[in-house]
């Protein structure tokens, strides 16, 4: 069935660089939301939460409920939003700098507690809005303004961190494979529990990886998704460095576990709670 895209535009002027990977993510995001809305999800129940950076400008371009949080904090904000009203679909759009550097503790703990939010990391593997410094996923040797001779730190693998942190939905997408990414976002949002999608995103101004990714990226088959061992095998094909001939995208791992908000709130909706008049000591 062909679904018509619903107009989600605002009057805000787009300020991303021409050719920015964020355009692909925005397109995939809108398609995924359109599909959810067509399937009957009330528009008012969607909240997009962003951090700070190029990625986070996305909320200005979406005519949806949104919360522009602080750098590194959108996951913490999103958790509060989900706990305040668990009926909301809460989607975080944040960058690698905010998620893996400034706010890594929130990512790990949100995954650990399996709160039902979706985290999309626009991973261009550098701090772009501050004009190109290395982040946790910049490859060792990354030449930026703070590391003119190349970064001396080895990058880490966020997918592996998510597996160790007990995330129940772990995937990787590519901003230039819009249809594939749209499906990943849909699956992530529909997953009951913490869903994490690292989106490889070329940065035309400071880390142009189009050629590198186009030569290496391939779509994984969706199989053995509940096996940690199998997930690890897939993850180990590429460690976010300059080496490796193949970069798999798709879902690495997906299991079902009770969600945090269900266990914590037991049906209570704090924002809709009747105001109590009587208080006993």
């Amino acid at each position, binding site marked *: 069935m062909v679904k018509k895209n619903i107009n989600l535009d605002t009057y805000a002027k787009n300020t991303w660089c021409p050719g920015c990977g964020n355009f692909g993510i925005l397109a995939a995001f809108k398609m995924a939301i359109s599909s959810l809305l067509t399937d009957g999800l009330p528009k008012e129940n969607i909240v997009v939460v962003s951090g700070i950076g190029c990625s986070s400008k996305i909320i200005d371009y979406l005519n949806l409920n949104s919360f522009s949080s602080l750098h590194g904090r959108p996951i913490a904000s999103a958790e509060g939003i989900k706990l305040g009203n668990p009926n909301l679909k809460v989607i975080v759009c944040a960058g690698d700098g905010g998620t893996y550097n400034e706010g890594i503790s929130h990512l790990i*703990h949100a995954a650990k507690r399996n709160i039902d939010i979706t985290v999309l990391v626009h991973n261009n593997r550098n701090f772009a809005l501050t004009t190109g410094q290395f982040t946790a996923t910049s490859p060792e040797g990354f030449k930026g303004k703070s590391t003119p001779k190349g970064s001396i730190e080895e990058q880490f693998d966020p997918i592996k961190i998510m597996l160790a942190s007990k995330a129940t939905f772990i995937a990787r997408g590519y901003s230039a494979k819009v249809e594939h990414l749209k499906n990943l976002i849909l699956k992530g949002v529909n997953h009951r529990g913490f869903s994490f999608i690292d989106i490889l995103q070329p940065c035309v101004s400071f880390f142009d990886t189009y050629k590198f990714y186009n030569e290496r990226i391939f779509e994984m088959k969706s199989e053995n998704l509940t096996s940690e061992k199998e997930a690890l095998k897939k993850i180990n094909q590429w460690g976010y460095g300059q080496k490796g001939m193949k970069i798999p995208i798709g879902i690495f791992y997906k299991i079902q576990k009770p969600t945090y908000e269900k266990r914590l709130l037991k049906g209570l909706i704090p924002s809709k709670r009747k105001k109590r008049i009587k208080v006993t000591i």
Partner: protein
Amino acid sequence: MKKDFSILVGGAAGEGSRKAGLMIAKLFSNLGYRIFIYDDYQSLIRGGHSFSQIRASNKKVLTHRKKIDFLLALDETTIRKHQADLDKKGVIIYNSDKVSIKDENAIGIAMETIVKKAGGVSIMGNSAFIAGFAKIIGIGWKTLEKLFKKEFKKSKGVNLKIAKKAFNDTKNLIKIKKLNQKSLSVLTGNEALSLGAVKAGLDFYIAYPMTPATGILHYLAARKEDFGIAVAQLENEVSIVNAAIGASYTGARTMVGTSGGGFALMTEGLSLAAQSEIPLVIVESQRMSPATGVPTYSGQGDLLFALTAGHGDILRFVIAPGDADEACFWAGKILNLSWKYQTPSILLIDKEISESTFSFDKNILNKIKYEKPSVWDKDGQYLRYKNTKNGISPLAFPGEKNVISKANSYEHDEFGITVEDEKSTEKMQNKRLRKFKEMKKEVNKLEAIKIYGNKYAKKAIIVWGSTKGPAKEAAEKLGIKMIQPIILEPFPKKQMKEALRGVNKLILLETNALGQMEKVLNCYGIRVDRKILKYNARPFLPEEIEKKLSKF
């Protein structure tokens, strides 16, 4: 007939002196006495020296005093440390299995022997101690038994057996009179403020453990089903404050609690709440000294920090209640104010209020109600930051039909889209400035300053927060005026001017090293003649205030 008693119960941490103190306080409370308990403990789990000092009086008391009538020693250290403060007619009661003492007026209770015979475990020695003391002061077995049955859920039988034996073995010394007034509940400041917040419609409490605010988390976690609220502990204070703002954005009345160090981590949240105009209530319970400082003791050193924390132009409410009743009332009020003005606010207390135990008048709760904030009239397109006359933009929440609510930490237009141009930036700042004006007007309508002692005295002391307790007692005794500002931001200029009328000598008292309140007063053109500062991590005592004031 004496109607004001001081009882000190001390021992090593883990020996149960706090619980024993609380039970003794409840014995007095049941007889109509008004209670104050000062709890002194170190940052350790076992060993060291902890004590509870109970004041039981026919009148409301908000402080302990130096002189002790009964010194209850679970160990030798307690006698060594506190014997000097024992009144001439005072009595030592001690664990005779552990402590040997030459004082012939001292009364021994063979705690260990009694426990062993009854087949109990060593912590139950406290039951023997409490029962022995009850006998000494002439409390009947029936009253004691009733309290034990209420307080002990587990091992009730053994504890009662131990208590009965100690009660029978101990001689009666005096007869404490039952007072002809209603018995009140005894609560800590943390518990009282929790009740106040719940009464004003608290939906969600989020915290990371930090002394002395942890008691709020414990109390609300234990009672969340009763109150029908949510309580969560998250990974750190940064996530706490951001999650709280997120929850408030959905319409849930959310509060967080911490001490100075945790508050330092939360300051980014103050800016976020101010800029995105989302209500946020932070309980900041101070402890002594910078950094880790003296973690289980009190001080008032975070005043200037609370008033100025957060980057950018922020106006916030800072309210500093001085006892449990006020903590309850103002916790409710600050939650309502925060929602009315969609602004961050800080309830500034300290260890003396958080962890001390007070007789609590539950009528305070009747003065607190849920106050409905300004909400969207559902007319036209919803604008989160509608440029209104009073600067307050009506609230609507995600999930509501036809609502698109765009909250933004960037400067934004009325809809919530990021802007950077000078015209929009100034326009939105002006909107917030108009709101600040309204907040200032609101303070004028509230009882922001309290006066105690002799209202007409020319000599006045000015105190804030927990220093109220000992200062009030001293001021009343000396017949001078006491001025207690409760709302510290926006500063109640008019009310302060009124309070200072006729005063020609103003003395400031606070428990910090820099005299921070003086700086605040100076900002409003108020000069203090003298400062009495205390910064050894212990609260003022009425006796020392009286002595110091008599010099000026």
